[in-house]
């Protein structure tokens, strides 16, 4: 078995490049998701994106751009509602996540026949990454990462102590809103390969593994991205060679590395 055989196929090359972009993006954002204890956010946005995908299928538009716009709107609504009502964020997300998913199920009811797009969004598919999807993933990843790298200290400070961050002049509300929007975009992009059901795993697992080893924030960021890339490359390769669903294989590789790290770490 040629280990690099899978790289000869264009669909696999696209999946791997998309996966490597997503690996950096989801792990980078995941650090702040785990720090802020908002792991439910990725889960909620991913499930809520079903309604966006259903709208796209019903109207004949490309699912990815419609799902991205839908997720951005939801992220902003969650942010506004969180600010206005002072409800805990997991409660706000819970309301939107279930409502939007229910809307998606109702809308899907109006589509007729077999929907391969829908299945690939639910469980992820390495066959589903088109050249246009790859460009969208690459451009949005570069934009979000540029903001993330520039804002990493501000995001850390406001996540550790919001009041101190406000007093030190950091635009806390703006940066929080951008974080929510960035996270919603990244989640929808990740749905292409990992699927709605499993995408949030790549936001949580690499930063969780990294925290078992890192002693500084810099090391935490580098290790999270490194583990994320290892998980994606091994996961995609295994899913190709053993004809397994890509999302589930990637998540199980991540869970296995977490388990090994947990056993051998002293935290």
């Amino acid at each position, binding site marked *: 078995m040629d280990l690099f055989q899978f790289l000869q196929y264009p669909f696999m090359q696209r999946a791997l490049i998309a996966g490597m972009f997503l690996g950096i993006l989801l792990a980078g954002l995941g650090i702040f998701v785990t720090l802020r204890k908002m792991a439910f956010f990725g889960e909620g946005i991913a499930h809520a994106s079903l309604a966006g995908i259903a709208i796209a299928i019903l109207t004949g538009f490309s699912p990815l751009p419609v799902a991205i716009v839908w997720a951005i709107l939801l992220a902003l609504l969650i942010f506004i509602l969180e600010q206005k009502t002072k409800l805990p964020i997991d409660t706000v997300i819970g309301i939107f996540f279930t409502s939007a998913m229910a809307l998606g199920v109702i809308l899907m009811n109006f589509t007729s026949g077999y929907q391969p797009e829908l299945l690939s969004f639910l469980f992820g598919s390495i066959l589903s990454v088109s050249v246009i999807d790859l460009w969208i993933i690459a451009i949005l990843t570069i934009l979000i990462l540029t903001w993330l790298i520039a804002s990493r200290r501000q995001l850390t400070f406001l996540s550790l102590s919001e009041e101190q*961050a406000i*007093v030190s002049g950091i635009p806390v509300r703006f940066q929080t809103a951008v974080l929510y929007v960035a996270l919603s975009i990244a989640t929808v992009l990740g749905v292409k390969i990992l699927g709605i059901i499993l995408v949030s795993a790549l936001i949580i697992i690499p930063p969780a593994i990294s925290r078992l080893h890192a002693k*500084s924030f810099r090391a935490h960021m580098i290790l999270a991205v490194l583990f994320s890339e290892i998980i994606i490359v091994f996961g995609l390769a295994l899913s190709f060679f053993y004809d397994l669903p890509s999302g589930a294989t990637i998540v199980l590789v991540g869970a296995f590395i977490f388990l090994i790290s947990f056993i051998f770490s002293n935290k």
Partner: protein
Amino acid sequence: MIQVKNLSVVFGNQTILSHVSFDVNHGEIAAIIGPNGSGKTTLIRAVLGLIPSDGEVLIDNEPPSHVRSHVGYVPQRFRFDPNFPITVREYLDLPKPHVHKHEHAHKLKEVGLEASILHKPLGSLSGGQLQRVLIAQATIHHPSLLILDEPSTGIDIVGEEQFYDLLKEQRDQHGTTVVLVSHDIAVISNVVDQVICVNKKLVCFGPPKQALTQEKLSELYGKTDTSLYFHHRHY
């Protein structure tokens, strides 16, 4: 420096502070005192513009939100996940990066810490060390106004003396105005220029020797024996 006029804070049907007015001048150290639940922390948060309030607060003749980059703030509670991997140096750099290594070391020395802790995880510090790091971070960029909510909590008596020396140094060398919440009347009366006594409203205000009369302390704490408040420590 700070002008507070008729400041009131109401949460729901509950009045936390009612018509509080005072001024703190440039380069003064002022202490807010009062019993538990008297509104001291609320007063600080209202002065910083962190909570909605009625009345007027001006810092250098500007609303608090306009001058935040010149303010250092140490909150009463800093709750964070001690397992989050961040070193002391990384934490000191969060508000504004690109501080030279020797400045970190100098600032840590000022608050009574060794430079060797710069590379230690923040979560591995003791309560007293963490409190000193918070103060170091709040003062590293020499703010014109420093606000501290019960800053000596967790610091031992020797450290407390060092801490008040640090406040005086900030005032004398950098012209920093300092406002702090404190319970230790005996100590602050020898250190501060002004006391602001609150118990839902302003009970007394002025230089400690004039403001802290037995009558006012009784009104503030509801007790008559003022020796209870003074522990014969002088800095």
